[in-house]
């Protein structure tokens, strides 16, 4: 619709059309896909987010770093509807007020999320995990009679390949290694075909090789999707980062390229401790 200036727009619409059913209603005419303005979240008086403002561009890959307890996960909770902010506004594109929407509505509108602690459906096979995540009509009656179509199977096979789990497709997800679970969860994100991917600590428990693969995957997703990555592993962040936001005590402390941020006095203080 209004997103004619988006370079990958036609392809994107084609993709949505292929998986059908939910119209592309995110209005990114101002190039910004996520707006957080003056967001405050407090738990029993403690401010996990403190007047935080953050803007994410359509197609951007953004890294968010910050010490433990800085509010990174809370930020994702706010975007995905798990936590309601006390004050402030959160918009998806120009029109969708995320503070008014429930978790499943936000997910269906096109925001996918990977949790900090990998959460997959443990009793289902890898294949079924991907099937459950797949972008399709997710209402009850539809699910009762749903049958996998050929192109949906192809899509699952494709994602299985991307996340290197083709050999494990029939395995129960509970039996996967930690790193494999991380990938399965990323795969589930891909199946949802979201506009925005929120990825909380994706490489915890991964080998170096797996990490490289994940870095490749996330960078390849940017452009077509907006990706927000929270990660503690600085080498990993350096390998994918274009723009980095540093959170501290629930607010943005610094923002810029990895080099800028690393040489910022306040950031050094926070990380090294006064």
């Amino acid at each position: 619709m209004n997103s004619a200036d988006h370079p990958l727009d036609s392809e994107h619409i084609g993709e949505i059309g292929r998986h059908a059913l939910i119209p592309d209603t995110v209005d990114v005419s101002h190039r910004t896909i996520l707006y957080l303005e003056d967001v405050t979240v407090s738990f029993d008086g403690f401010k996990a987010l403190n007047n935080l403002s953050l803007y994410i561009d359509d197609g951007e890959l953004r890294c968010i770093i910050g010490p433990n307890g800085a509010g990174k996960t809370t930020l994702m909770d706010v975007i995905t509807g798990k936590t309601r902010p006390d004050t402030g506004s959160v918009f998806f594109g120009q029109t969708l007020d995320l503070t008014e929407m429930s978790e499943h509505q936000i997910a269906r509108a096109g925001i996918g999320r990977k949790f900090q602690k990998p959460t997959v459906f443990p009793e289902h096979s890898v294949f079924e995990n991907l099937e459950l995540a797949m972008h399709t009509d997710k209402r009850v009656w539809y699910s009762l009679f749903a049958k996998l179509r050929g192109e949906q199977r192809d899509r699952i096979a494709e994602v299985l390949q991307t996340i290197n789990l083709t050999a494990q497709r029939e395995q129960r997800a509970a039996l996967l290694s930690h790193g494999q679970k991380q990938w399965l969860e990323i795969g589930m994100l891909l199946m949802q075909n979201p506009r925005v991917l929120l990825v909380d600590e994706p490489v915890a428990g991964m080998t170096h090789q797996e990490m490289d693969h994940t870095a490749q995957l996330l960078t390849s997703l940017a452009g077509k999707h907006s990706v927000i990555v929270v990660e503690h592993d600085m080498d990993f962040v350096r390998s994918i980062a274009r723009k980095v936001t540093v959170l501290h005590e629930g607010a943005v402390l610094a923002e810029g390229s990895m080099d800028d941020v690393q040489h910022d006095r306040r950031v050094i203080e926070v990380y090294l401790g006064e």
Partner: protein
Amino acid sequence: MKSTPAFFSSLRADRGGQIFLAILAVVALLVPLLNLMVPEANPLHLSTYTVTLLGKYLCFALLALAMDLVWGYCGILSLGHGAFFALGGYAMGMYLMRQIGDRGVYGNAQLPDFMVFLNWKELPWYWQGFDQFWFAMLMVMLVPGLLAFAFGWFAFRSRVTGVYLSIITQALTFALLLAFFRNEMGFGGNNGLTDFKDLLGYNLQSDGMRSALFFASALALALGYLVCRYIVNSKLGRVVTAVRDAESRARFVGYQVEHYKLWIFTFSAVLAGIAGALYVPQVGIINPGEFSPLNSIELVVWVAVGGRATLYGAVAGAVLVNYGKTYLTAALPDVWLFALGGLFVVVTLFLPHGIAGLLAQLRSRKKTLQPAESSP
């Protein structure tokens, strides 16, 4: 008709279900035959009492299927499922009361005896229509279904889960117990509904009717099993177990979790209502005791003993535990409750997957042993 192939295809990988249905088919044919065709003097003759007893077990098995759907597959530990069973039973009981007509003690064709006794002059509005079999059958499903829907709507929307949900389901059945005890409710109070005479114009006490009811229970159980198997094998079934195992993941993937819980809870209540409706004509009475919280807890034990989330395990658990109950309450009436409690503890500690889990374990051990034996 069109969906029959889907039902059967969902049975293909269900070894336990195939065995169960085969046994059920044999029993469904053999039991009426041994009762009706074999003369009483013959040692193979099955008494009408036994036919009715077995019919009761089948109704309990259907109820256990309903419980397994919500608890085993969706993780909702309902401690009030007996209420839906009882409501279905009451709906059937009301029809059976109307079938008595003027053959009651007071000979009043318009009113059941207990209403005459209470000096009521006319039939309350909620008894209207129950002289029609089709209407009563509709209510058998609709009343438990609507109650479950309304209850689930509030409970699931407020995201009540776990122990709290169990407690309020228990409160639900307890509240109904108290309500149905009251004479003013118009359901026969303490005594409930009884002294039934006919069903569809046929004498309820006749051997033929007993066998017919037994067969109908077997048929309902078989159909119930096939529908439940279809549901748990469908994508809806996979979503429901996904909700059980990782509820918030299911939400963030885009499922409206409340709707899935509500659907499965309501469907399960309807199934429980049908089981209750088949139960009442066989035992000849329905009274508020059926709402007793203890009944719902027993139901949980059946499913735990048989093994959760297998369906056939729930059936096996219901039949075995009730067989034990029949035996114990006759031989050592005081022991039953302790036995039930003990059974639950033993199963929880040593057999977390119940009998079905034990069988699966034995089978997989046999499988791993066989190649080892043949290799040297």
